[in-house]
């Protein structure tokens, strides 16, 4: 129905997450109507992204071709604390909080036994290798507070117990500025479990 190059683009766009055939068609026709240089810029960005990015040698976060991400290259970061996250986007979320000045380790997923994702598919060996090098006092397991994230945290706690380092998990609890009466049972329960003494 459509010329082959346009059909190929629709097929490729349709493979992106969350993009159905209709959306792929709409995007393809939008690009078709754009000036030539816009389409070339997009194509160039895609190629450059593939060619110029790799995983950081240290933390497995996304990095440029130098092999070190910005965090691992920053000498002011506290290398004795590692925050373990599931995804590179989680690094951005924690950085936005401004509450953490240590380094990261990106697992690129979480244990998902029902999906068949096991420890071998995660970057756990790289984490162990970092710990074996020494100099790490604490590992903060900042995986998502869901079944997969909890399973990953418990697995890491077991696997890394031999290194003799402190293993912690961020507190779960009430959102700042929220009302108690609207909190769900599980969150409220965890908030009570993680209560801390008042100072003053």
């Amino acid at each position, binding site marked *: 129905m459509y010329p082959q190059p346009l059909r190929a683009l629709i097929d490729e766009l349709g493979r992106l997450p*969350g993009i159905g055939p209709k959306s792929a068609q709409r995007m393809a026709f939008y690009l078709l109507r754009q000036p030539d240089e816009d389409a070339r810029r997009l194509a160039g960005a895609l190629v450059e992204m593939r060619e110029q990015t790799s995983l950081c040698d240290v933390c497995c976060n996304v990095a440029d071709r130098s092999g070190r991400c910005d965090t691992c290259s920053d000498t002011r970061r506290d290398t004795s604390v590692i925050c373990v996250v599931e995804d590179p986007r989680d690094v951005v979320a924690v950085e936005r909080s401004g509450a953490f000045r240590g380094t990261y380790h990106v697992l690129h997923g979480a*244990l998902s*036994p*029902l*999906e*068949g*994702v*096991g420890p071998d598919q995660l970057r756990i060996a790289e984490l162990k290798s970092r710990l074996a090098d020494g100099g790490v006092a604490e590992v903060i397991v900042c995986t998502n507070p*869901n*079944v997969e994230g*909890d*399973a990953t945290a*418990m*697995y890491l*706690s*077991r696997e890394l117990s031999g290194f003799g380092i402190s293993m912690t998990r961020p507190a779960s609890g009430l*959102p700042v500025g929220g009302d108690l009466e*609207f909190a*769900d*049972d*599980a*969150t409220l*329960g965890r908030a009570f479990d993680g209560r801390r003494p008042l100072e003053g």
Partner: protein
Amino acid sequence: MNTVRCEAIVLRTYKLAEADLICVLLTRDHGKVRAVAHGVRRTSSKLGSRMEVLDHVDVLLAKGRTELLSVRQVESRGAFDHVRDNYERLAAGLVIVETADAATIEHHADEAFFEMVRRALATLGEAPTPSVVATAFLFKTLAHEGASPVLEHCASCGEDTDLVAFDLAEGGLLCSSCRRGRPVSPEAVALMRRILLGGLAGVLREEGPPGSAEVASIAIDAVESNLGRRLRAARVLGAH
């Protein structure tokens, strides 16, 4: 638009679009159903913490224009919170829900099976060896499916002593004359009999009963063979 209120156990979830989840629910009155929980993956969602795998909930489901139901309200029964606090319990719990998902068909109510799943998950909190609860659940599922292995005598010749092997094709234990399949120890034979022929409560109270690893392996193979699919959780987590 019709709504139904039911007691359910969340067997499985699949991510959908930006922040939604498709939840596979085993309900007491309506069998296995699929429902979309809209916006549930956002931190602001009030449903999120209650629509995860292994959650035991009271749920209000709305029927829409498609096959999928829609989750309108959820209240936690909180019965299985203990399962998520411990790796061994979680691993066993995931084996149980995966088996329950594989063993059921949608919209086919089976209250006895629902109760079996609920009790197995509840027992995980009390049993000293969670993997034994999962093993027992696998055997009970086989029995529920009408595929209980022959344990009283040789499945081939009927001999009731000297049972030394287990063969899935023959459907149970075999004597030394008919031996085929995998060899089994006397401890494993005794444990399987206690699980299926009386004595399960005692087994669940014991810490690592003899032969449990062997029996777990037999149970997984038997269920996989019966249901025609692999149990990923058991393989991935080394739950047994």
